[in-house]
C-alpha cells in the first residue's frame, strides 16, 4: 500500500525539528564551542576614529605581556600581499590598515595570545599614533566639491562616487509623466541597519604544516564561496582548504562576506603553526561587519485620475561606507532594487542609483533580503500609499486597480523581470477581511472624535527570491546554482548533503521531508549534513531565500535520479521490464498487479546485494540545479496602530499577514519564518537602526544603544495562507524566509502615517521613534532621518 505521506514526515507535515534535539540540551556546536589542541586566541584592535592617517604603531608593550605570542599589523600583512583583499563587489577592502583608517571600528592590529583575556590586554597595550582627518557620514556631503577623498588608495578615484547605475526606459518614462494627470512625489530614507545575529562572527584557523592542509571553522552562510576566496586571496591550493561552518547562531546576511578577522586568523595560524581562534565581540560585530540598507529615494509616480499608475521614476543614492563590499550578484550594482513594483501592472519605469563612499563600515549585505529587495518594496509601498492619498483614493482600492491580475501571468515587471504566478487580489481580499477593513475605518473615525489617532497600513508585494538562474546571477563570476548529494545505504537509511547552509531555517528537518516526498523513505531515516566543504557538494550557500528554491530543488532532483535507478532494480527484482513498473509513494509495483511490488528499502538492499547485469552497484547520486527563474512569493501585510499624540509612542493593535509562498514543505517552519520576519520588520519600523554622529562615531555600537525588540514589545501576529504553486520548481515551492522582513516595514509605517495624515505630514523616516513622531505631530512637517552634515 502507498504510504501516508504526512505520517512519514513528507511534504506538508509540520514535523518537529531534528536539530532541536541538540539545541534544547545545550549541545549545539557553534564556532566558539570548538576547542582544538594547542589553540591560541586572537583579538582585534579597532580604530576609535572614523577617518585618520596612521603615523605609527608601537607594539612593543604588547609583546612584553607574558602569553602574547604575536602582534600583527598592516605592515606585516602588506609584506605578504595581504593588507588588502577583494570584496564581493569588485572593490578592495583593507584587512589591517596600513595608510589610513576609513571608518570607526576598522581593523588596525591583532594580538594572538594564550588566552582571550591576554589577547585583549595586548590590544590595550598597543600605541597607535593617528592624525585625524575630516570624516564624512552624510552621502550628500560625500559628493560635495570640497569633500575629502576617502579612497585615496585607489588609482583614478578622484571623488567619493563608487558607481552610477541606471535601469529601465528613461524616455518612455518621461513620456508617461508628460501624459499624467497627477504626479505624486516622495523622498524617503531606508536607514542603515544591522542584521545582528545574537552570535557574532568568528573563526578558528588551523594550518597543518606537515600536510599543508588549512582547516577553518567559520561562521559562514556560504562556506564554498569562502573556500574559493581563500584559494584566490591567500594563494593556497583549493583542495588543501577545508571550510567548516558548524551550527550558526543566526546569520541574516551578516555571515556571507569574508571579513578581515577570518583572514588575519588564517595568516596567524600559518605563521605560528597553531590553531588560532578569533571570536568577535558584539561591538566589533555591530561597527565593522556587513550592514543592511542605507538607501535614499527621490520617487515619483505618474498617475491617471482614475488611479491607474502610468509610470515610475526612482532616483536613489546608496551609502556603502568606506569599501564597496556589498554581497550581491555581479551584474547588478544595487542588487535587485529594480524589482520594485513587480506586483503592479505598470507600463514603464526608470531607476537611477548613485553609490557613494562615506566614513562608515562597509557591507551592504542582503539583510534577510534578496539583495536590496527590502528597500525596493518599502519604497514601492510608501510611494503607493502617498499616491493613493494624493488622489484621495482608498489605499486598498488603489492597489486593487493596479495589481497584476491572475490571468496575466507570465508577466513582465516594469523593470523587466518575469513573474510567473500569483493570486494577488485574493491575498489582498483575505487580508482585508481578516482585519475587518471597513469596520476599522469606522472605528478610526469614531476614535478621532475623542482625540485618538488610529491608523491602518497595507503592504502588498511580490519579490524575487532564489537566485539564480545562472544566466543572470553570479557572484564574482561563480554561477548561482546549488546542489544536493544523496546516499541511500543498504538498509534503506540515507544521508543527504547540500551546498546550502542552515542557520535556523531547519534544513536538517525539511530536506529530509523532500526526500521522503520523492522516495517514500521516512524522514526520520534521513540524516542531513551541510557546511563542510570537504564533504558537501559545491553550492553557493544560504541567503536571499535561495535554499528551498535552489538547493531544495536539487534535493528533489537527486531523489528522482535515485528513484530512476531504483526503478531498474525493482524491475530486476520483480522480473518484468522497466516499462511495466509503476510507482506509488515508497514502493514500485507491477502494472496491473498491485500486490506484486518491492519497497524502496528492498531496492536499496538489492543495490548492494543483487544488482542486475549492466547496472553499477550502489544507490548514490548528486544533482546540480540551475533554476529557470526566480520564485515569486506574494504577501499582503496589514497593520493597525494607535499613536499617542502626547508622546509620539505608537502601539500595534493587530498585524494580519497573508503569505503565498507556494507549496509549504513544513507549515510549522514556514510560519516560524514569517513570524521572525515580521518581528524584524517591526524592529526596523519602530526602533532598530545604526546611525552616526558628525564625527563618525557609530551610534548603535552595542545592545544598549542598538535597540532590538524583546518579547515584551513584539506584537502578536495573525497568519493566513494562499497557495499558488511555483510553476517551475520541482515541488512548487517558493522562497519565504524573507518576505515578512521585506514587505512588513511598509505596513507598520503606512499605518502610522495613516494615523497622522490629518496633520499634513507625509513622511517620517524609519525608525518611527517617539521623538520623531512627536516632532511631526507638533510641526506638521516631514521628519528626516538622514545622518548629520559635518560643519568644517
Amino acid at each position, binding site marked *: 500500500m502507498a504510504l501516508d505521506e504526512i505520517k512519514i514526515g513528507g511534504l506538508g507535515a509540520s514535523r*518537529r*525539528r531534528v*536539530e*532541536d*534535539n*541538540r*539545541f*534544547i*540540551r*545545550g*549541545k*549545539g556546536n*557553534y564556532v*566558539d*564551542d570548538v*576547542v582544538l589542541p594547542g589553540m591560541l586566541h586572537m583579538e582585534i584592535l579597532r580604530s576609535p576614529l572614523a577617518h585618520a592617517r596612521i603615523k605609527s604603531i608601537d607594539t612593543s608593550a604588547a609583546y612584553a605581556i*607574558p*602569553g602574547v605570542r604575536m602582534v600583527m599589523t598592516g605592515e606585516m600583512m602588506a609584506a605578504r600581499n595581504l593588507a588588502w583583499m577583494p570584496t564581493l563587489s569588485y572593490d578592495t577592502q583593507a584587512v589591517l590598515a596600513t595608510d589610513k583608517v576609513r571608518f570607526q571600528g576598522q581593523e588596525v592590529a591583532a594580538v594572538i595570545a*594564550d588566552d582571550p*583575556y591576554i589577547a585583549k590586554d595586548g590590544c590595550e597595550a598597543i600605541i597607535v599614533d593617528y592624525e585625524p582627518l575630516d570624516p564624512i557620514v552624510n552621502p550628500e556631503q560625500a559628493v560635495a566639491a570640497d569633500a575629502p577623498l576617502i579612497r585615496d588608495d585607489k588609482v583614478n578615484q578622484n571623488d567619493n562616487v563608487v558607481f552610477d547605475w541606471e535601469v529601465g526606459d528613461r524616455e518612455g518614462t518621461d513620456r508617461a509623466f508628460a501624459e499624467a494627470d497627477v504626479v505624486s512625489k516622495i523622498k524617503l530614507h531606508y536607514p542603515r541597519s544591522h542584521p*545582528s*545575529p*545574537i*552570535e*557574532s562572527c568568528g573563526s578558528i584557523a588551523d594550518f597543518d604544516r606537515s600536510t599543508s592542509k588549512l582547516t577553518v571553522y567559520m561562521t559562514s552562510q556560504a562556506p564554498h564561496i569562502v573556500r574559493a576566496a581563500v584559494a584566490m586571496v591567500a594563494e593556497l591550493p583549493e583542495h588543501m582548504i577545508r571550510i567548516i561552518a558548524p*551550527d*550558526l*547562531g*543566526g*546569520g*541574516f546576511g551578516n555571515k556571507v562576506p569574508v571579513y578581515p578577522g577570518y583572514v588575519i586568523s588564517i595568516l596567524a595560524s600559518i605563521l605560528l603553526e597553531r590553531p588560532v581562534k578569533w571570536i568577535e*565581540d*558584539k*561591538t566589533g560585530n555591530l561597527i565593522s561587519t556587513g550592514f543592511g540598507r542605507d538607501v535614499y529615494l527621490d520617487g515619483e509616480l505618474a498617475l491617471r485620475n482614475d488611479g491607474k499608475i502610468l509610470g515610475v521614476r526612482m532616483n536613489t543614492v546608496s551609502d556603502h561606507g568606506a569599501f564597496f563590499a556589498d554581497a550581491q550578484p555581479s551584474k547588478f550594482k544595487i542588487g535587485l532594487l529594480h524589482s520594485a513594483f513587480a506586483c503592479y501592472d505598470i507600463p514603464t519605469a526608470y531607476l537611477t542609483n548613485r553609490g557613494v563612499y562615506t566614513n562608515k563600515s562597509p557591507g551592504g549585505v542582503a539583510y534577510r533580503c534578496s539583495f536590496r529587495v527590502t528597500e525596493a518594496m518599502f519604497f514601492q509601498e510608501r510611494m503607493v500609499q502617498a499616491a493613493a492619498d494624493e488622489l484621495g483614493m482608498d489605499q486598498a482600492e488603489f492597489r486593487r486597480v493596479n495589481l497584476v491580475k491572475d490571468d496575466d501571468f507570465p508577466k513582465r515587471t516594469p523593470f523587466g523581470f518575469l513573474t510567473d504566478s500569483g493570486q494577488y487580489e485574493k491575498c489582498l481580499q483575505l487580508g482585508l477581511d481578516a482585519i475587518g477593513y471597513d469596520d476599522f475605518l469606522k472605528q478610526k473615525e469614531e476614535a478621532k472624535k475623542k482625540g485618538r489617532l488610529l491608523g491602518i497600513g497595507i503592504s502588498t508585494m511580490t519579490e524575487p527570491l532564489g537566485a539564480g538562474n545562472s544566466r543572470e546571477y553570479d557572484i564574482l563570476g561563480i554561477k548561482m546554482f546549488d546542489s544536493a548529494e544523496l546516499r541511500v545505504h543498504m538498509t534503506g537509511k540515507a544521508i543527504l548533503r547540500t551546498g546550502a547552509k542552515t*542557520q*535556523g*531555517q*531547519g534544513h536538517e528537518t525539511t530536506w529530509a521531508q523532500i526526500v521522503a516526498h520523492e522516495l517514500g523513505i521516512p524522514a526520520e531515516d534521513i540524516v542531513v549534513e551541510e557546511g563542510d566543504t570537504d564533504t558537501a557538494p559545491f553550492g553557493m550557500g544560504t541567503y536571499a531565500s535561495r535554499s528551498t528554491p535552489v538547493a531544495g530543488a536539487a534535493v528533489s532532483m537527486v531523489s528522482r535520479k535515485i528513484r530512476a535507478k531504483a526503478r531498474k532494480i525493482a524491475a530486476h527484482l520483480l522480473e518484468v521490464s522497466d516499462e511495466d513498473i509503476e510507482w506509488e509513494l515508497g514502493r514500485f509495483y507491477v502494472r496491473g498487479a498491485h500486490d506484486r511490488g518491492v519497497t524502496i528499502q528492498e531496492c536499496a538492499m538489492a543495490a548492494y546485494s543483487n544488482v542486475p547485469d549492466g547496472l553499477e552497484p550502489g544507490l548514490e547520486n548528486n544533482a546540480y540545479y540551475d533554476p529557470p527563474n526566480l520564485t515569486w512569493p506574494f504577501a499582503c501585510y496589514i497593520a493597525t496602530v494607535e499613536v499617542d499624540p502626547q508622546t509620539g509612542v505608537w502601539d500595534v493593535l493587530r498585524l494580519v499577514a497573508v503569505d503565498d509562498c507556494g507549496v509549504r514543505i513544513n507549515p*510549522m*517552519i514556514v*510560519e*516560524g519564518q514569517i*513570524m*521572525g*520576519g*515580521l*518581528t*524584524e520588520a517591526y524592529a526596523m519600523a519602530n526602533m532598530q537602526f545604526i546611525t552616526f554622529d558628525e564625527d563618525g562615531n557609530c551610534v548603535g555600537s*552595542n*545592545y*544598549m544603544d542598538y535597540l*532590538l525588540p*524583546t*518579547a*515584551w514589545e*513584539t506584537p*502578536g*501576529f495573525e497568519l493566513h495562507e494562499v497557495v499558488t504553486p511555483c510553476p517551475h520548481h520541482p515541488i512548487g515551492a517558493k522562497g519565504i524566509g524573507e518576505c515578512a522582513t521585506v514587505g512588513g516595514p511598509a505596513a507598520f509605517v503606512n499605518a502610522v502615517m495613516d494615523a497622522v495624515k490629518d496633520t499634513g505630514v507625509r513622511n517620517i523616516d524609519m525608525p518611527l521613534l517617539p521623538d520623531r513622531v512627536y516632532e511631526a505631530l507638533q510641526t506638521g512637517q516631514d521628519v528626516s532621518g538622514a545622518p548629520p552634515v559635518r560643519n568644517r
Partner: protein
Amino acid sequence: MTSLFEEVPTSVDADVPTTRVELKLNGETRAAQIEPRLLLAHLIRNGFQLTGTHTGCDTTNCGACTVLFDGQPVKSCTMFAVQANGHEVTTVEGMATASELHPVQEGFKDEHGLQCGFCTPGMMLSAKALLDENPNPTEDEVRWALSGNLCRCTGYQNIVKAVLWAAEKMRQDGSAGDEA
C-alpha cells in the same frame, strides 16, 4: 588538564594572583583555581566545558548566557566567577535528566520555539525560573519574564506558546513549583 600534568607559562608573571572557587554546578560540587577577573560565563564554558551557555553581547543585554544562580536567572557574562563561590549554578545541561527532558525543553521543541538555537538555553532557563515561581503565568507575565532574553529568529510568539505549553504540562504532572 589533569593532576598528572599542567603546562605553565615559561615567563610567569608572579604578580598574577589566582584564587580558588568552589560551587555547586548542576548539582555537582566543582572547584577551580582561577584568575579573579575570570567571568562566570567563561568559567562555565571554557573551564568546565559546558558550552550550552552562550555569550552573545558581553553587556548583559542579550541573555544568551543566562544561568540560574541559586534559582534566580542571572547573566553570567557580567558576573565574576568568584562571585559564584559557595553558590548553586544551573545551566542548560542541568535541565534534563539522563532519561527525561524538562517540560520547558519539550515545549520549545513542540511549539517550534527556536530556530538557530543560540538564545535557546538562556531563554529556557529564564522560563524555568518563571515557572518555578509562578506555575500558571499569563501571556503577559511570560513576555515580561523573557524580556531580558533577545531572540532574532522566532519573533517570540512560539517561545511564549512553548512556555505556556510547559506550564500546562507541569501543572498536569504536579511538578509545578517543585525545586528539585
